[in-house]
Each structure stands twice: as C-alpha cells, then as structure tokens.
C-alpha cells in the first residue's frame, strides 16, 4: 500500500509537470498555431521548411507547425472551435468548411488577403470557399481524377490513346474498355473502379457529362434532381460492372490503394484515381512497370470536373488575424505554392504557380494534370448544407447498391431525389 501511495505521488508530480500553460511568454512576440494536414514526407518537409523560413524572417510573428490528421479532422476542429481553442491557421478541404463558415467559426478573409493572392487564384476556385457573402478559406491545392493506365497494355491493344486536347468520350471509353478487355484475356479487366467513396467520384466526374445533381433555385434553395446528364457517369460504371464485365465487381468496395496490386500485376489496364496517387505508384510500382496518366473521359461538360480544393483558413477567434493573413500571403507565394504542390503531388490553384515549368513535364503525368487543371470546377455539392447527411444516409448506400447491380437506375434516381430532398429540406427550413 505504501508503495502504491508513493507511485501515485510520483505520478502526480510528473503530471503536474506536464500541465501546459496556454499563454506563451510575455515577450511581445505574436505566436500563431498552424495546423497542417500534410502527411506525405515531401509535403511535410515543404511545409516545415516554409514555416522555418517565415520564422527566420519574422522574429516578431512566430508560427508553430502542428501536424493534424485527416482522420476525424472535422470533429477535432468542431470541438476546438466550440471550446475556443482552435488553431489560428487551419488546413482543411473546401467541402468541409460550410458548417464552420456558417457557424461563425472562420474569419471572412476578404478584408485580410492581399490583392496579389486574390488576383492570382481564379474565381472558380474562390467559389469553393465562398459561403454566403464571405470567403472563408484560400483554396491552394487541388487534384483532378485521372485514368492511370498500364502503358504497355494500352499501346499494344491499338486503341486510340487520349490526350487532354482530345480525350475519350464516355461512350468511347465504354467501347474501348470492351475492346481492351477482349484483348487482355480471361480474369483481366480494362478498368477497375475503386468506389469505396462512390458519391464524390460520381458527382465530380459527372460534371464532365453535364451533370450537377444539386440545383439552386432563384430563392437560393437547393434541390436534388437527376437529369439524363446526371445519369451518364453512374450509368457507365454500372454497365461496365454489370453488363459489359469490363470492370470487376470486387473493387467496388475498395479504396484507390487497394487496386494498385492488381494494376501492377496487369490485371487491370486502367484505374481512375486522384492525381496525387501518382506518388504511390512511383513508390510501389515494380521495376520496369510502365504507366501513363490519361485525362478522364468527357461528355457535354467537356473536360470539366468537380473538385474540393485543399484550403487554408483563419479562425474567427484568432486575436492575430492580420498576422495570420500575412503568413498565408508568404506561404502561398507562387514559388512556395509550387513547392507545396510538388510535395503533395497535386496541382496549385494559383495561376502563376501553375505556369511553373516543373508542373508541365511529361514525367509522371504532370503535364496531363496541368492541362486539365484550368477546367476544374467547384464540386457540385460544395456549400450545400446537409450534403454530409445526404451523402452518408442516402447517396452512399444508393450508389453502392446501384453499382453492384442490386438496384436499377429508376430506384437510384428515386432514392437520390425523393429521400435526398427530404434530408436537404430539413437544413433549409427558415
């Protein structure tokens, strides 16, 4: 018993020593906390290096780099906001910002950001972080979905290889997938669809076919509708899996990484993936494996695609918004944006950064992505209140069942529209 008491006393002492004081030393230095979600080594290195450079040049405004986590970031930020302990500078994705912006947790950046930065990023990218009248984040990195293809299979099959200037149409893509599957032999497929997150893929690629799914009326209210254009991309995927057998059913529940072993083994000729997956392919592909990056197929919407860029925001509760905005200005200078983009294997939103020659090389498919970048649009669900609930409760199960062949297009449409509008209506009551 005496030993136990001694242990408790020791732990108490240790823990008392571990209690942090929230207030920094009173030395007149402004201290900003920057929570970054960068996770790949090159990206983390680039972030840290930029923070280091800022701190060296600005002894009066010191930034502390804190690595956050994509996992649970919404709940973590929500708790921090409610508790008044949010980081000053916040890294997130634009489709996660709506609730925080409408909840008054993020600062309106319009009076804070310099003209240089505002002018450098195209209006379509600013749309992704504009909620109501305010702008609540700086969109700085984005990634289109592309087709990563096995170069040897593609070239030996004799099919036309698409380019950003002349991509495949969705109809052509379906036909080519049939041709490819025939030439590849049994047990092999032209395409593998990793659709663990079926909603964002369906919606964002659907923009290329002229789909929107979410339609905003003159009164500002959003409703779900399912037009013919909205059905083209989901219909193509469904038919490839259920009718043509050019895509395996087994990958429908997989994440992008899960399809890579099959891709490397030549089981699939193409995998639609986010642009940043190239880093994994470079890292994991077996020696001699030849791959290429192709633009996603197009429809009446052209090479347009929906995206939710990565963003940097400033907390409304931050007492040093001006200094935080100055840091953002430094952090997102064109040269720095290029470093961040290369670190994350993504594309910068900034026009000047996107023009950097290093992002236009054919190596690792950079040029294809850069060519597609100017056609990227805000994801259709961007800023729709109630979208997360619609996605989780209505759309995800509906798309999963449709792609696997459990329900038909009519039932998919009914669920997305009828059930979906019931969900959205709750968020739009006045």
């Amino acid at each position, binding site marked *: *018993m005496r030993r*136990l008491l001694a*242990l*408790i006393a020791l*732990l108490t002492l*240790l*823990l*008392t020593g*571990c*209690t*942090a*004081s*929230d207030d920094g030393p009173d030395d007149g230095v402004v201290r900003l*906390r920057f929570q970054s*979600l960068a*996770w*790949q*080594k090159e990206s*983390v290195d680039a972030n840290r290096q930029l923070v280091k450079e800022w701190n060296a040049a600005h002894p009066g405004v010191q930034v*502390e*780099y*804190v*690595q956050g*986590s*994509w*996992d*649970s970031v919404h*709940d*973590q930020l*929500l*708790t*921090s906001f*409610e*508790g*008044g*302990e949010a*980081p000053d500078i916040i890294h997130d*994705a634009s489709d996660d910002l709506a609730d925080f912006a409408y909840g008054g947790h993020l600062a309106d950046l319009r009076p804070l950001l310099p003209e240089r930065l505002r002018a450098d990023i195209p209006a379509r990218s600013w749309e992704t972080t504009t909620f109501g009248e305010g702008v609540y984040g700086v969109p700085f990195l984005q990634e289109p979905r592309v087709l990563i293809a096995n170069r040897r299979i593609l070239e030996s099959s004799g099919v036309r290889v698409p380019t950003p200037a002349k991509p495949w149409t969705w109809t052509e893509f379906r036909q080519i997938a049939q041709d490819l599957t025939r030439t590849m032999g049994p047990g092999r497929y032209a395409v593998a669809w990793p659709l*663990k*997150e079926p909603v964002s893929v369906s919606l964002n690629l659907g923009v290329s076919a002229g789909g929107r799914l979410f339609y905003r009326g003159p009164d500002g209210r959003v409703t779900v509708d399912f037009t013919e254009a909205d059905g083209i991309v989901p219909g193509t995927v469904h038919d490839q899996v259920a009718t043509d057998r050019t895509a395996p059913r087994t990958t429908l529940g997989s*994440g*992008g*990484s899960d399809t*890579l*072993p*099959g891709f*490397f*083994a030549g*089981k699939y000729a193409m995998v639609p993936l*986010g642009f*940043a*997956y190239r880093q*994994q392919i470079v*890292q*994991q*592909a*077996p*020696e001699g494996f030849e791959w290429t990056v192709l633009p996603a197929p197009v429809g009446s919407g052209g090479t347009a695609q929906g995206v939710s860029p990565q963003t940097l925001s400033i907390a409304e509760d931050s007492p040093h918004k001006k200094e935080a905005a100055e840091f953002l200005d430094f952090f997102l200078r064109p040269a720095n944006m290029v470093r961040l983009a290369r670190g994350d294997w993504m594309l910068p939103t900034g026009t000047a950064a996107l023009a950097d020659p290093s992002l236009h090389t054919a190596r690792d498919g950079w040029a294809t992505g850069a060519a597609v970048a100017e056609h990227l649009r805000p994801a259709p669900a961007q800023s729709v209140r109630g979208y997360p609930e619609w996605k989780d409760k209505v759309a995800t199960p509906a798309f999963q069942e449709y792609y696997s062949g459990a329900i038909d297009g009519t039932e998919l449409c009914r669920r997305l529209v009828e059930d979906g509008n019931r969900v959205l209506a709750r968020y739009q009551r006045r």
Partner: protein
Amino acid sequence: MSALRTSGPARAGQYLALLAYLVFLAFPLLWLVSTAFKPAPELASLHPTWIPKDPTLDNFRQAFDEQPLLRAAANSLLAAVSAAVIAVAVATPLAYVTARHRGRLTTAATGWVVISQAFPFVLVIIPLFLVLKNLHLINSVAGLVLVYVVWSLPFALWMLMGYVRAVPAELEEAAAVDGAGRIRTLVSVTAPLLAPGIVATALFAFVTAWNEFFFALVLLKTPEKQTLPVVLTHFLGAEGVADLGPLAAAAFLATLPSLVVFGVLQRRITGGTLAGAVKS
C-alpha cells in the same frame, strides 16, 4: 473430484479448434509484423506472402525519421500508466464498499455504471473540453489522464466488484475473530486475494488509455504532447490513403508495450486466479 476424460479424437478436435482460434487471434499481429518488414514493391504485390522475400528495416527507419515516435510513446506510456494506477487506486475501495454493502443505492450505482459505458465519445467531448479548459487542463497529459480515469473508472469499478464478491466475507470475519482490525484485515487478507483482479483491472485501464485516439487528438494541441495513436494517423492521408510500410512498422512498435505488459503480468493474473479458486 474426478478428472474430466475425453476420447482421443475428441481431444484432437479440441486441440485443432484451439489452434484455429489461436491462428485467428494471431493473424492481425503476424500480418502486421510481416508488413512492417516488406519493401514497397512487395507491399503492392497481388500475391502477398507471409514471409517477406526481401526483408527490410527501411519502414522502421522511415517511420522514426518522419515522426517523433519515441516522444509520442513516452507520452502514451505516462498517460496510460498514470490512468491505470489512479483508476485502480480509486476504484478498489469504491468497489469494496459497493460489493460488500448491497442496497438500492449500490444497485442503482451499478446500473448507472453499465449505462455510462454506452455513451458515445462525441456526446461528451464538447462539454468535457469546456470543463478541462476552465481547469487549464487542455493540452496537458494531466488533463488527458483525468479523462482516461473518468472514462475507465465505471468499468474498472464493475470489474473489481466482481472480484471483491468472489472473496468470501467469512475470511474477513475469521480475521476479525482472530483480532485483526479493519485495516489489517483489508491489507493482509482481502488485498492479496484481490491482487489478480486489481492487476487485470489495471491492465484494462492501461490498454484502454494506450490505444485511445479521439480524446488525445482533441485535447492535445502541440506536437510535443501528442500520443502514439495520434502520431500514427500522420501516416494516413485523405480518403484512406496510407503510407503502409512505415505505418505498419510504427503500429507494430506501438503494440509492443501492451504485449510486454500482458506478458509480464499474465502469470500474475493466472496464478492469482488459480490460487483463489482452490479451496482447501
């Protein structure tokens, strides 16, 4: 008592079932170890093998290079050991009183303990955050330990009550008849018999705290304070993309303390339990 006898085939079947169960339990750990030693191309192979063809320590090197694993492990260890010791120190006397003095109040308390286990984290996190903020315990291991103790206390109490009830009250009465005072009886008679239960409860509290992610993610703000589960998520990107090799290496290292603690203490639990189970 006669020994239980089983026929040869039945016994073989039992061993087979036990073996299958052990393999089932061990599979995740063995796969984790195998993954931790595989180079990137092998990780992406369509035909994964149990034994890495070209084992490498690169994943471990990369994991340590990219993340402050040792510091995070030290934070986790401090939080988990503190939570376990404090939870047991608080729960043991409470369990004793609750188990020995039954009444409506203790029944209600026990019911509440069970119900409280059903509360989801997200339900309590914001009020908890505000309380800790007022106590200036945000971003401190002390605050995290407080949460872990509160979180594991109900179940610890519930576990220990069972162990206390298993100690015959007649033993304490006999000690009293022999002249031992209340404290002496508790320390010399009851406590040794409760030891396996206390160890098991401490293990439960330790493992709960060691593995906990969400509270640590929300309550600890600076990198110096982050615990191992939080640092492990730094190997994960958006939409479930993972740096699999270093993640497996770091996760394997993170399981070691739990394995070591179980390895060291399991004999104590088993031995104590058996000792208490035999009646002369």
